[in-house]
């Protein structure tokens, strides 16, 4: 009975109610959307590297080493000498080791020197491997394999010639040694998409005619001569290491960290990612609290609407009283109306969220490499929805109490 009244009453004021519902729906969609992006970003982040037991580089910080060697952002770490690299590679605990050499760029993309083993050992998203979408892996000194984003934003195809620049965003380009695109990798959603991969020897080859950061004037070694040269690398930036058994990880890590000939650092990728996320997590909490405040604002807006509707509904309330409704019934009616409004708002909000996700999912994946899974609402999300409805009912108690008092004093004749 009272439910029918509440629905009828909401229906009579459809436009005002619709606006309130929309405000609540948008705020709920925003809150849940932020939550989705937050968890999605965290998962994507953690999925950037898997299957690697240790990342080895020059002694810096674990987060810095991880950022530079895997995400290719932040300050460059020092290089590690080839001798030390080989010392580590020769350790009995080491199952496989893949060197990484950074420091050059192609347009806005980083160039990474490594070995062909990288394509086999680098894993992301719980053990998924890299796949070549087009062409083949490097087979020649001047072959490159490029990530999906490099290919799409620069419009490269297999067999296109490219020029690799010295340093990042440098004006002096290594024009002498044109590289060739031999393969394009499938999209991964990791920094590999934005990387131009060449062999370690190729990194050395680029620098043959260079002394102290500038090209030696008048000296230009033709590619044929470079091919004859000894291109054994002098240094690498970092190395990805896999061990024979997890039991040996800590011992190997300690050996590397205490290596006396050169200050080096070995980090556990999972632990470094956690450390990094602990830093990012502060911003994440701020974002979440802002969107929570938007929900609160929408609910307060609803309270304001109920307040302003009280005056125009005094006659209505008086009629209910005359027909035998108790003052508590009037109060209950108002609270029920508010709870219904909040519930419709919350439901519409979650519909908006899923509609938005379905539309935005491929776009976000393409633009940011961030995969937002579309799944049934989690327990946490359902709790949020229930919380909005309960909060709506509680907020409406204040105007409802006023209506209760008014209905006690007002007679049939409303004195205004």
């Amino acid at each position, binding site marked *: 009975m009272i439910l029918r009244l509440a629905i009828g009453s909401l229906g009579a004021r459809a436009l005002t109610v619709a606006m309130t519902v929309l405000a609540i729906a948008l705020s709920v969609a925003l809150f849940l959307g932020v939550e989705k992006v937050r968890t999605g970003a965290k998962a994507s982040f953690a999925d950037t590297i898997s299957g690697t037991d240790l990342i080895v580089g020059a002694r810096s910080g674990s987060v810095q080493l991880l950022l530079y060697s895997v995400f290719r952002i932040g300050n460059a770490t020092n*290089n590690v000498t080839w001798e030390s690299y080989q010392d580590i590679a020769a350790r009995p605990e080491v199952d496989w080791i893949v060197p990484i050499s950074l420091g050059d760029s192609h347009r806005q993309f980083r160039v990474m020197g490594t070995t062909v083993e990288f394509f086999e050992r680098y894993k992301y998203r719980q053990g998924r491997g890299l796949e070549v979408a087009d062409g083949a892996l490097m087979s020649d000194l001047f072959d490159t394999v490029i990530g999906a984003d490099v290919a799409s934003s620069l419009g490269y195809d297999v067999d296109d010639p490219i020029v690799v620049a010295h340093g990042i965003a440098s004006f002096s380009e290594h024009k002498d040694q044109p590289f060739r695109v031999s393969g394009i990798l499938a999209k991964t959603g990791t920094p590999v998409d934005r990387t131009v991969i060449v062999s370690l020897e190729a990194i050395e080859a680029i620098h043959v005619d260079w002394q102290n950061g500038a090209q030696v004037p008048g000296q230009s070694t033709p590619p044929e001569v470079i091919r004859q040269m000894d291109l054994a690398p002098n240094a690498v930036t970092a190395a990805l290491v896999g061990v024979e058994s997890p039991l040996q990880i800590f011992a190997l890590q300690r050996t590397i960290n205490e290596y*006396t000939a050169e200050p080096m650092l070995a980090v556990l990728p999972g632990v470094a990612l956690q450390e990094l996320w602990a830093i990012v997590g502060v911003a994440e909490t701020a974002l979440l609290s802002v969107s929570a405040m938007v929900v609160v604002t929408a609910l307060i807006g609803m309270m304001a609407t109920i307040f302003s509707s009280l005056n125009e509904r005094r006659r209505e309330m008086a009629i209910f009283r005359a027909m035998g409704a108790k003052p508590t019934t009037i109060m209950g009616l108002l609270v029920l109306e508010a709870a219904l409004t909040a519930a419709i708002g919350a439901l519409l909000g979650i519909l908006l969220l899923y509609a938005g996700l379905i539309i935005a999912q491929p776009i976000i994946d393409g633009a940011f490499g961030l995969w937002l899974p579309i799944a049934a609402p989690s327990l946490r999300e359902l709790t949020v929805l229930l919380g909005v409805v309960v909060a709506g009912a509680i907020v409406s108690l204040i105007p409802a109490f006023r209506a209760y008092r008014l209905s006690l004093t007002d007679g049939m004749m409303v004195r205004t």
Partner: protein
Amino acid sequence: MKYSFPVLLALIAIPAIAENARVLDAHEHGVGELNIAVDGKTVAMEFHAPGADIVGFEYAATSAKDRAAIDAAVALLAKPLDLFVPTAAAECSVIQAGAALESEEKHDEHDHEKHSEHEAHKDHDDHAKADASHTEFHAKYTLTCGNPDALAGIDFPYFEAFENALELEVQIVTTSGAQAFEVERDRPMLDLRGVF
């Protein structure tokens, strides 16, 4: 020559380092480290904690009382299942356990043979000279667990045994990756569901 510059530096630096490498580990009072590696049924653990956490002092033990305190602590640390208690259903038992006190001296006072002795966890008490600024307790354990899938958590009576210990930084490595946890005195337990 971006690449050869660091190499040149390294060439200059190597002889200097070889003579006396001045390297110290991190040392934070109240905070110990526990590394756990799990492979099949074998669980390897490594434990490090400042002397201040375990016995309450870090000077070289000279009095009989201090020596007794250290001996008692080492004996306690050699029984891992009394300090770090895995879920009973995992049926873990100790295969190997050893603990020792190691003094954190400046490494340049030693030549490398002695340094490698450090690693081998031999008679560390001999190294605890009067000028040592910090001491650390180290321990290594190997456990075998009959039912490793049932390993759902670890309790830490460790904090009851050692009153000065406030926190343990735990790192766990399995075939599926590495994770870090902080176990604090207020909540001396570790939930491992979802790690394996």
